[in-house]
């Protein structure tokens, strides 16, 4: 919501600087986003009067002008503009001036002639023709400027003379005289080659000596359009030029107040509970309370008296009464559509609204001032003189003012005549009842519609408008009448038409003001303050609450105030949030801390980081194609994911049931960035359908991912083992081939399941080369997926001290040769079971294939540690055990001592 401070000052005088104003309003609850001095970028631009002009000797299109800019001596300015004449007033950017867009003007030379500044057009001042409709330029086609498109076939001969026929009734003519009239048009005298003519014209680019095309039949000077000429044929006869002022001003005056650039605009972020502050009056009320200044509101007065009776002219029905709490309307006749006056255009522009014409501008002006959206219909198109506020029929069509056709349904509320819809209630008017140049009778609608209905309608049609944005927050039904009165008052003030007596006002609700009890102790109790009752009453009264005894009547526009806490907020806002003391909590002590799951997450995280893994955070939603990329079978049940019905895009459209694609995506990204030796982990959620109440079964997974020269299957296995060891998990085994479907994402020969007892905790291994290829990675990627719930189950008991060995141990190394298919695990198991309880430790230290070992076989070397708890073991005892081990290896696995 933009606010013009000039407009604000009509209701409350606030002299604070923009910064002070912004701060005070923000702290009382109307958050200021930014402030803007409209004329900030314009400096040293004044009004100048053109004294004389002569053609530049070295240019075919420039003029050397002498200008009275309010200084002792006239100044010289060179311009390329053709629409000016001696006597004209215009904006002059003097030497060392600035213009919007950071433009700086300095004196200089133009083709050798000194120019001490620049005349400004509308756009150079940040304006357009809507701001100053009279500054629009319609250029005449000046024959001296004619440049044929085809040099060999000119439409007009180069040596054309006054009186020569150009075509039909059009002849060449020389301008003898050209004088500006008070209304901005020109009186001319033309030489037709003997005869003369004296047509009037609106074309401002004519000067004495110019050759023009004159239509003898219509007695007019031809424009480009009249000649069916293209712009390129008359390159300097353009609809642009200097802004010739028709304002009450004199040479030397600062341009900013003249063009309304002396205003300051404050941009507010208004919270949705305060639609009343989406208006100048609403903000004026807040400003008055904030600065403790009197608020002077204006009571609209309408003279009325136009011909006809409203009752006969207009009938309103509201069959959809539940969606239209109030409908108020008045009529204006003999409307003269014209631009609205400068002060109104300036205010609209300051608030960010483009001026259109007087009637439309009035509706916008009232919407900004009162916060009440208004609509104006052309009465001609309200067939049968009847307005019906109803739900749209299924499939009913309506083309709105923006030219878009909409197909409606019963959820939309329309304004209709007897036959058809003429507007989308609260959103936008229909094209079929638009105010146009020849509109004569106008119906002003000032209504209150149901917020939810308007919001949903606007959303469904994708056309959230200024009006719908206001309605959707729920407007004050009491505001419709003052707003329509104000609109009619403005019609009379602008002389835009005659107001018909009487008002149509349909109330479909029973207004009953809300009365609350003022409980100062409870308010202080909630705030932790000691605000006196008097101060509370004074604050509430400033905001137009009525207070009698302990009864507080809430104003109609404050639908957000429903209870004690709301009154407390009003008190707090103006007592000052920053004047509330700052105290520490009292009361019963509570024990803080983490839950079990988070404690586990933290333990896992620090273990991963200790092993060099960096933590990542990935999106919970993925693309359905991710399941293809990780090789899951088409009919695999875990593809069944929660689907977002309104996703941002396909890539983020389903809730992941696996974290693997997320990890692979991040590994790939780092791989593509050529980051070396990457190790990553995430404790992330997966979401399986089928939870309680239609929710998800959300569980967490610890995912590791890595690649690089220091990475292989056993390194990843070591990390997994370390994690389980850190958890003190017991009975941990690594298996393959139990038929877990998710393993399809992994290299079939380099993947292992992780079991703790009879529970599968997860799996790890090298990502299947085809899966890696799907991600565009040609190297080896390694991942581990461990379910957090299973890790929690696998967590072992707290450590208990075991006495340190009192007696020394004996170590023995053995190397056995066995078939390739025999696994290290089998050998280890065999050693342990054969070795008996003296074997404390079995550690693999070498696997050898090659010279000295037969083809298809391998040599596997272990280091055995043997120890007894009650005595020093002798070498003989150890050797006896090793012998048993070797016998067992040979008999059970065919592994013989090398």
């Amino acid at each position, binding site marked *: 919501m933009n606010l013009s401070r000039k407009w604000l000052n009509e209701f409350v005088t606030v002299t604070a600087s923009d910064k002070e104003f912004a701060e005070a309003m923000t702290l009382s609850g109307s958050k200021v986003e930014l402030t803007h001095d409209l004329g900030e970028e314009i400096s040293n631009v004044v009004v100048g009067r053109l004294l004389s002009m002569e053609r530049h000797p070295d240019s075919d299109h420039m003029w050397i002008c002498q200008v009275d800019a309010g200084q002792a001596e006239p100044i010289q300015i060179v311009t390329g503009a053709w629409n000016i004449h001696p006597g004209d007033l215009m904006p002059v950017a003097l030497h060392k001036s600035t213009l919007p867009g950071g433009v700086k003007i300095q004196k200089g030379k133009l083709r050798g002639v000194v120019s001490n500044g620049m005349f400004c057009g509308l756009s150079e001042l940040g304006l357009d023709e809507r701001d100053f409709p009279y500054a629009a330029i319609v250029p005449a086609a000046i024959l001296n400027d004619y440049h044929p498109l085809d040099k060999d076939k000119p439409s007009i001969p180069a040596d054309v003379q006054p009186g020569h026929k150009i075509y039909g009734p059009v002849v060449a003519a020389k301008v003898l005289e050209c004088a500006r009239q008070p209304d901005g048009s020109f009186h001319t005298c033309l030489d037709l080659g003997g005869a003369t003519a004296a047509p009037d014209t609106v074309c401002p680019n004519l000067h004495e000596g110019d050759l023009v095309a004159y239509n003898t039949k219509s007695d007019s000077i031809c424009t480009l359009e009249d000649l069916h000429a293209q712009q390129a044929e008359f390159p300097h006869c353009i609809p642009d030029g200097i802004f010739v002022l028709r304002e009450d001003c004199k040479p030397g005056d600062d341009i900013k107040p003249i063009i309304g650039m002396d205003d300051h605009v404050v941009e507010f972020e208004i919270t949705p509970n*305060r639609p009343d502050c989406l208006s100048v009056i609403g903000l004026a009320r807040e400003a008055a309370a904030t600065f403790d200044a009197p608020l002077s509101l204006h009571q609209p007065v309408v003279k009325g008296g136009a011909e006809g009776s409203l009752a006969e002219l207009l009938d309103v029905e509201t069959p959809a009464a539940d969606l239209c709490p109030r409908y108020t309307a008045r009529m204006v006749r003999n409307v003269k559509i014209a631009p609205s006056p400068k002060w109104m255009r300036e205010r609209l522009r300051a608030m960010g609204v483009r001026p259109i014409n007087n009637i439309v501008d009035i509706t916008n002006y009232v919407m900004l001032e009162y916060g009440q959206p208004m609509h104006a219909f052309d009465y001609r198109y309200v067939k049968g003189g009847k307005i019906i506020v109803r739900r749209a029929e299924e499939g009913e069509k309506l083309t709105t003012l923006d030219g878009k056709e909409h197909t409606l349904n019963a959820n939309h509320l329309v304004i209709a005549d007897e036959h058809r819809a003429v507007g989308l209630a609260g959103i936008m008017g229909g094209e079929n009842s638009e105010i146009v140049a020849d509109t004569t009778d106008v119906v002003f609608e000032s209504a209150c519609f149901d917020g939810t209905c308007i919001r949903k309608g606007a959303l469904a049609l994708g056309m959230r408008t200024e009006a719908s944005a206001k309605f959707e927050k729920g407007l004050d039904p009491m505001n419709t009448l003052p707003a329509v009165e104000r609109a009619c008052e403005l019609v009379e003030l602008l002389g835009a038409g005659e107001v018909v007596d009487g008002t149509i006002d349909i109330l479909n609700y029973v207004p009953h003001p809300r009365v609350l009890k003022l409980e100062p102790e409870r308010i202080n109790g909630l705030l932790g*303050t000691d605000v006196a009752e008097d101060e509370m009453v004074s604050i509430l009264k400033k905001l137009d609450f009525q207070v009698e005894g302990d009864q507080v009547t809430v104003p109609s526009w404050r639908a957000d105030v429903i*209870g004690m806490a709301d009154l407390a907020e009003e008190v707090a806002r103006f007592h000052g949030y920053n004047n509330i003391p700052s*105290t520490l909590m009292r009361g019963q002590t509570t024990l803080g801390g983490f839950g079990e799951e988070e404690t586990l997450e933290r333990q896992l995280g620090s273990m991963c980081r200790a092993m060099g893994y960096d933590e990542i955070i990935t999106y919970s939603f993925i693309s359905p194609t991710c399941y293809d990329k990780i090789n899951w079978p088409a009919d695999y049940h875990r593809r069944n994911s929660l689907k977002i*019905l309104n996703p941002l895009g396909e890539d983020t459209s389903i809730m992941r049931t696996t974290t693997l694609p997320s990890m692979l995506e991040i590994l790939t990204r780092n791989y593509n960035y050529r980051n070396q030796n990457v190790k990553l982990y995430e404790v992330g959620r997966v979401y399986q359908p089928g939870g309680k109440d239609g929710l998800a079964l959300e569980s967490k997974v610890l995912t590791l991912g890595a690649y690089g020269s220091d990475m292989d299957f056993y390194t990843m296995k070591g990390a997994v083992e370390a994690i389980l060891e850190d958890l003190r998990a017991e009975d941990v085994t690594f298996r393959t081939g139990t038929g877990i479907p998710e393993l399809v994402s992994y290299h079939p020969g380099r993947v292992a399941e992780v079991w703790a007892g009879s529970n599968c905790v997860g799996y790890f291994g090298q990502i299947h080369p085809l899966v890696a290829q799907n991600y565009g990675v040609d190297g080896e990627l390694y991942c581990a997926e461990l379910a957090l719930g299973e890790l929690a189950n696998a967590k072992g008991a707290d450590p208990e001290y075991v006495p340190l060995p009192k007696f020394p141990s004996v170590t023995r190394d053995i190397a056995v040769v066995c078939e390739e298919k025999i696994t290290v695990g089998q050998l280890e198991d065999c050693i342990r079971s054969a070795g008996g309880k003296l074997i404390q430790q079995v550690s693999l230290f070498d696997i050898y294939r090659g010279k000295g070992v037969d083809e298809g076989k391998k040599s596997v070397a272990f280091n055995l540690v043997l120890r007894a708890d009650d005595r020093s073991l002798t070498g003989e005892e150890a050797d006896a055990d090793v012998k048993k081990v070797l016998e067992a290896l040979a008999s059970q696995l065919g592994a013989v001592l090398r």
Partner: protein
Amino acid sequence: MKETLEQIRREALSALEHAQNAQELDALRVKYLGKKGELTAVLKQMGKLSAEERPVMGQLANEVRAALEGALDTRSKELEAKALEDRLKAEALDITVPGKAVKRGHRHPMYIALDEIKDIFIGMGFTVLDGPEVELAELNFDRLNAEEGHPSRDWSDTFYFDEDSRVMLRSQTSPMQVRAMDTMELPIRIIAPGRVYRKDEVDATHSPMFHQVEGMVIDKGVTMADLKGTLNTVVEQLYGKGTKTRFRPHHFPFTEPSCEMDVQCHKCGGVGCPTCKGEGWIELLGAGMIHPRVLEMSGIDPNVYSGWAFGIGLERTAMRRFKIADLRLIFENDVRFLEQF
């Protein structure tokens, strides 16, 4: 004989002093003190002396022996010390050669910021809660006083899983307030960090998934002054003692009165600069006194109990904490980014 002894003493002491290593020293010991050494040879001639001379010469010979032995011992220790010194010198390293790399894993910067927040609140007796992200609209909206028709319920703002807009991705961590009220004993002091989802396109400051930390206190006699005091303490812990804050009125459906808390801009100290968009203050979090209707809906009598709640955006906190310029870095997970923290 006396001369001989004096000569031996002179020569031997000088030779010992010049011995350069243990071998030389040992050779000198043998030469002078050994069984066939020079001093021993002199002593063997003692018998030839007169009875008067014998004790005098004996004493002198002993003195010479003692002197030689002492000098030998001293020189030996000197040489040992020198040898050690030489070895240490030879073993000296170029300490500017880099150490052997230990790859250290890094906590994600956002979780570093979260850990700091958690630690502060746990110290104040808060329990950390976790809850579902796929949530009922009833808990995310209705029970928080954002009834049917509230704009944040629109399909343009919130992700839904069913046509009835019943199941959604939570758009805030606030439904954890309701879950806590429904399941916990009073008084309640909780924080609930987690992921939240809104339909925002990805850019430098937006992401469809981001993180919040919810906090809530319910007890008898809890006031807005307590809210201010607690949050001020938190901010001082996070941003340093003496950090200035201010509270502005705001609106949330589930709190009344509601506020936003700003911290004074660290860059300009409140004068106004590009970081704070010229305001001198940076918005930190939203908070307020729990709306009486929200308490009522959870069966808590607002005439007996009151409470306050807050919600803070974690990404922005982390970005401010570590001066991270672009939100996308947080979810990009480039290790060159991650390993800076």
